[in-house]
């Protein structure tokens, strides 16, 4: 017979050994984003391109049923790496990615800065790289859901619909470039979002910056191209850089007539700049003022 001893009681469990201390950051980052009001709606809208392209693949297999509908543009329904390139680098998908970043990414670091939660993170055996890894994985989760996952599904559905591995035989490298592209675009956008999220405490300003910088870079390109008609100004716009590198990854003809290495360099430079700022802004030490 015993009674519970009043007052403070100890916990006699063991601590987890080994790394992966950043997993809770990912789990909760994702859960908190799904709790936001319009996010589910936005997320389903961003799946529309995948559905459209899936229908495209279906049509390509049942060409004769749809003969009456398509008179001349059969090439559109030609399923080849160019088809995948169009899916991955079309303006609507990129725009939806930015909108998802506005919702899921804006508050990732801004909220921690605003509510000085950094002290809570770093008074624990958590290193700065774990913190960043956790935050990046939240963005990666959402962006993979509209790039990598649909890409692989489209590829598999093509095989299933065509009932043979011919497609895989003819383009064995395609799944690899889907993965490479997804990693590339998610990586860039992670740096882009976390960099903007760490420069201000106010989530609303960050959301506007994420949206504004992307749109502004494209407007700038439009203006300069309008005046000088030279394609090199494409380097100004984030969207065209991504499209350029994307085309190269699927070894298709690049939309602009300069080498895709230049675009890649511009994007990597941006990531480097972001990394430097991030390291300076998210500091564990001065948590106790």
């Amino acid at each position: 017979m015993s009674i519970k001893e009043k007052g403070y009681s100890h916990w006699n469990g063991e601590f987890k050994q080994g790394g992966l201390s950043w997993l809770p950051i990912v789990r909760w980052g994702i859960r908190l984003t799904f709790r936001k009001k319009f996010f589910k709606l936005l997320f389903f809208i961003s799946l529309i391109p995948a559905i459209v392209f899936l229908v495209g693949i279906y049509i390509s297999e049942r060409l004769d049923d749809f003969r009456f509908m398509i008179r001349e543009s059969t090439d559109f329904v030609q399923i080849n790496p160019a088809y995948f390139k169009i899916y991955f680098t079309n303006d609507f998908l990129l725009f939806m990615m930015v909108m998802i970043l506005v919702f899921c990414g804006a508050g990732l670091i801004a909220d921690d800065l605003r509510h000085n939660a950094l002290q809570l993170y770093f008074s624990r055996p958590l290193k700065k790289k774990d913190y960043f890894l956790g935050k990046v994985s939240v963005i990666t989760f959402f962006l993979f859901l509209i790039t990598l996952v649909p890409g692989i599904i489209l590829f598999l559905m093509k095989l299933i619909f065509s009932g043979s591995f011919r497609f895989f035989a003819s383009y064995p490298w395609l799944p690899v470039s889907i993965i490479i592209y997804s990693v590339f675009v998610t990586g860039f956008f992670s740096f882009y979002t976390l960099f903007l999220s760490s420069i201000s405490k106010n989530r609303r300003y960050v959301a506007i910056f994420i949206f504004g910088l992307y749109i502004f870079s494209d407007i700038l390109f439009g203006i300069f191209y309008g005046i000088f008609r030279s394609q090199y100004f494409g380097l100004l716009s984030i969207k065209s850089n991504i499209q350029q590198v994307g085309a190269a990854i699927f070894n298709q003809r690049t939309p602009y007539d300069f080498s895709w290495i230049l675009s890649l360099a511009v994007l990597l430079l941006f990531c480097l700049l972001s990394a430097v700022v991030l390291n300076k802004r998210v500091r564990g030490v001065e948590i106790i003022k």
Partner: protein
Amino acid sequence: MDRRTKQGIMNFLQSVKLCFSFFLSLGKKSRRTKVFYVISFVPILMALAIKLAQFFYSHRDISGLAIFSNMIMVFYLQFLILILALFFGTSLCSEELEGKTLTYLTTRPVPKSAIILGKYAAYTFLTIIMTGVGLLFTFLILNLDNLLDFSLYVLFLRDLVVLWLGLICYTAFFTFIGTFLKKTILFGLLFSFGWENVIQYFPGSTQRFAIVHYLKSLLKVPTSGGFSFLLFRLEPTPPGIAVLMLLLISGIFLFLACLFFSQKEYILQD
């Protein structure tokens, strides 16, 4: 008007002037003002880049003036003054609330309406300086080759006044919005990039409901160039009435802002 009300008005104007100098010194030093100074210099950089690039692509000979009146004016009218007015107007009241510094102001012997008017005047003054400087340098850079042609300067002053009127009107409107709405930035973006752009394509007098309409009807109708599509459906109101309408709209919104600000109880929740 008997002596007492005249004295009352003098006192009120004095309070507005005091608030104006208070917020001007505050606004000059705030980080946001510095950020927007940089943003308002972007057109200058664009003008420089264009000038530079014109050496390489000499075959494209668009006159500096055409670029200026179409391209730069569009950038200012449709984008820059909206952003400036939006950020300064909506934050005018909400930054005091969010920063919880409102009590420092409301416990001073100045009427609340003087606080709003003083701050509005200070912020509008700042944005006017920004756009003025930005536009002047852009204009000079783009028209380097014929700086002596005085008709250009008349055109420049005309554009400048249009932008300033736009700033005064938009800032007044967003100040009014800021005094009672919570999600001001979202509403402001919807208004400036949604309503203002869409409304101008509607027929008849629906255009009268957008501020941009009056601003555009003050602009000289552009000669040619690919950008005229922005003005093509415009049925301009005569300039005199347009200016009057702009000032009237600003006055109404400022009055409403003062009314809301003095009557509303602002609770500084943390």
